[in-house]
């Protein structure tokens, strides 16, 4: 069941749940952040509408810089602007930024420790027909290893808007990962959100959970659907929404693992280096427990519809349920 305190979308399990692209929440959040603080600036590499930065550009044309198809320039120019007191948000597709310009991000943003916000849109295989070149499944890993860098993966458009507004105030370098497709709206305006805090979105009706499902991004909704179905099958699940992958809410993860003694991670990313890797590292250090990681297994994406690809790469509701039952069997 869903804890009342989370104030989630009441239609969350309905067929007609509202569907909104996560990137749209970023676009609206950036306008709000720009209204609140005149130092917020936007830079884009020829993908202004795709990444929803056109909203900011229309509102604050004098605070928007179009750098052309040049992702290395995108982040380094932003670093220079941050050195002058600006709070730059830079957007492109995640495969290009942080994919192409990783060293520039490392040296001029993370090493320089300036508050540039890297916005990687179109992450994951759910990009769909564009195919594998445009489906970033490594970006969380790339950004998570950088000192000083926070990593945020919102689960829906509302959380993306809140995260964008929060990042404008964080004073730190950060990466925020967005999906392209329309995604079920999981949270509401009143749902709690804080950088660095995991949220418990689902827990057993009574008693201790049999499994802890730790999810991030667009797949949080699928994790909730899986938990709901498991509930019908008398399997108790707790679902954690990890909107902040770094700094990781280790306390919440350890608490959930201790309660369930079996963990499933769910992400639209390689199982190596992303959320699954981060959770395994944390539990390895604090509370070793069996883990099954749902995600892309050392492969590249391909063309198809988002749903086809999510199923093909083993990240659908059935896959999450299967992983949960498997990890429960592994309990010692």
């Amino acid at each position, binding site marked *: 069941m869903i804890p009342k305190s989370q104030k989630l979308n009441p239609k969350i399990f309905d067929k007609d749940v509202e569907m909104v692209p996560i990137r749209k929440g970023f676009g609206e959040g950036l306008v709000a952040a720009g209204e609140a603080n005149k130092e917020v600036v936007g830079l884009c590499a020829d993908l202004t509408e795709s990444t929803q930065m056109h909203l900011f550009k229309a509102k604050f044309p004098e605070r928007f*810089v179009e750098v*052309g198809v040049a992702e290395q320039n995108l982040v*380094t*120019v932003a*670093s*220079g*602007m941050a*050195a002058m007191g600006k709070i730059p948000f830079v957007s492109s597709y995640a495969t290009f930024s942080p994919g192409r310009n990783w060293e*520039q991000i490392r040296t001029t943003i993370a090493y320089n*420790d300036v508050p540039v916000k890297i916005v990687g849109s179109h992450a994951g295989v759910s990009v769909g027909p564009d195919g594998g070149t445009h489906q970033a499944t490594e970006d969380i890993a790339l950004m998570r290893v950088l000192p000083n860098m926070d990593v945020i993966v919102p689960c829906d458009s509302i959380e993306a808007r809140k995260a964008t507004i929060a990042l404008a105030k964080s004073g730190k370098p950060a990466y925020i990962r967005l999906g392209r497709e329309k995604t079920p709206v999981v949270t509401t305006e009143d749902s709690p959100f804080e950088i660095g805090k995991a949220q418990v979105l689902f827990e057993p009706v009574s008693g201790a959970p049999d499994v802890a499902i730790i999810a991030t991004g667009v797949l949080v909704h699928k994790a909730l659907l899986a938990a709901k179905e498991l509930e019908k099958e008398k399997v108790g699940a707790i679902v954690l929404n990890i909107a902040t992958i770094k700094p990781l809410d280790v306390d919440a993860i350890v608490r959930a693992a201790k309660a369930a003694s079996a963990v499933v991670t769910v992400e639209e990313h390689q199982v190596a280096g992303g959320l699954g890797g981060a959770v395994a590292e944390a539990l390895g250090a604090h509370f070793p427990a069996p883990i099954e990681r749902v995600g892309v297994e050392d492969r590249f994406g391909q063309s198809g519809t988002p749903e086809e690809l999510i199923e093909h790469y083993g990240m659908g509701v059935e896959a999450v349920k299967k992983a949960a039952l498997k990890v429960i069997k592994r309990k010692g």
Partner: protein
Amino acid sequence: MALSTTDIQKIEGKANSIRQSIIEMLVEAKSGHTAGPLGMADIFATLYFHTLKHDPKKPRWEDRDRVVLSNGHICPVLYATMAHAGYFPVDELKTLRKFGSRLQGHPHREYLPMLETSSGPLGSGLSQAVGMAIADRINNGKATARRIYCLTSDGEHDEGNTWEAMLLAGKEKLNNLVCVVDRNNIQIDGYTEDIMPLEPFVNKYISFGWHVIEIDGHDIAEIARAFEMARAIADKPVCIMAHTIPGKGVREFERKYEWHGKAPNKEEAMMALKDLRTLDGKIRSEHE
């Protein structure tokens, strides 16, 4: 404003002190780059002791000009110039590249916060300077008095990022941006025109929408005049293409690409310091 002969001699004297410090730091560090720092000493001396709007006692003064060293490996000349300008004690130069030092092998502003940027990986300085120039224009408009100075090497123009920055600076007509290119014709593997030809270098900058001033990078009066002229250029970023001699001031090191990335040993350093201290005799009395 033209420099008087006394002004020029004073800056030449500073450049010579900076060169001696460079040799002293490198021999103590036992590693580092020699040719580039020596070659850029005249430009750094002119910038910090004549052109730059700055206050070494208030390094974060809001109205200061900005200096971005793109090719971080020539940091001995930056550190030595900053020390002689009063940013920190000259004695500290001997900690270069040592554990716990603020003077990292390549500049890191976490260790030395008075730096504007960290640098080392080539080709990303100009774009950071472009970002600073754009931010300054947002704050102060086109008539801004501030100048953003970016110091780059010719070799790092092999990097695509540099050309991306040149394109954007031209597009944005950043007249508050000055890019100094150290045209010393060498890089690690050899002469630039053998490794990756850059000529016609000046034409490339011009075709990207820049105003180019070509100078002798060792003529103090010419360097100062170029910086001055750069202030008068409207609607274009300015490139100062400075022809320099790598290793300048030490006859044994001059023009040899082998000296790009190594430090002198004690004997070589003695010889280098002797070369520098007796240069033309005209600054002898100050340094003996």
